[in-house]
């Protein structure tokens, strides 16, 4: 019943990972920091190239399309669209490699 070898769900059923369904506030804070870091890199690139009168297509596109961390809604910051989930939203930490990918836009209306 008790002890190191008690019958728990992960032991008896093989693979069972327990990932909380929502983010903690510290995870959220670190996530915001990461978003801001990317925003800073974009502005550094833009400033450095603008001094030389240059720019790139990719950079312009990012600036036009992507909201900055401040402009993003909390809904888009901490959740992503998923068609398989009830109400079409899951927490962002369910996204594979979520700390190293940029996921800012979601389908309109969802």
């Amino acid at each position, binding site marked *: 019943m008790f002890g190191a070898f008690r019958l728990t769900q992960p032991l008896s059923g093989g693979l069972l990972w327990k990932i909380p369904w929502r983010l903690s506030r510290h995870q959220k804070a670190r996530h915001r920091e990461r978003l801001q870091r990317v925003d800073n890199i974009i502005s550094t690139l833009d400033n450095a190239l603008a001094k*030389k009168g240059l720019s790139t297509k990719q950079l312009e596109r990012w600036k036009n399309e992507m909201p900055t961390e401040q402009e993003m809604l909390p809904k888009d910051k901490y959740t992503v669209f998923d068609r398989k989930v009830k109400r079409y939203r899951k927490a962002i930490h369910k996204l594979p490699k979520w700390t190293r990918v940029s996921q800012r836009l979601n389908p309109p209306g969802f």
Partner: protein
Amino acid sequence: MPSYFRITLLRSAIGLPSKSTGVLKALGLRKRMTTVYFPVSQDVAGQIMRVKELVDVAEVEKPLSKEEMREQRRPEKGFYVERRARTRLEQGIF
């Protein structure tokens, strides 16, 4: 006035698409916390855009050599006295 991008790899690209791994290799970033310098150009900006979540970027005036970067990290030599033992005694702090 030429300026340079100082690029430092902060996060590894393990498990990411091979394109990001390839860009890091092309930039000469093999291990975390390595720093490389490249002149500001559209090509390098495009490369940085590809791995922007993994690196730290700053615009600097001149590139530093490996020895110079090491020298910057070195703490200052010697020590300084915060408070003499005598004054501590007089103040009654033991």
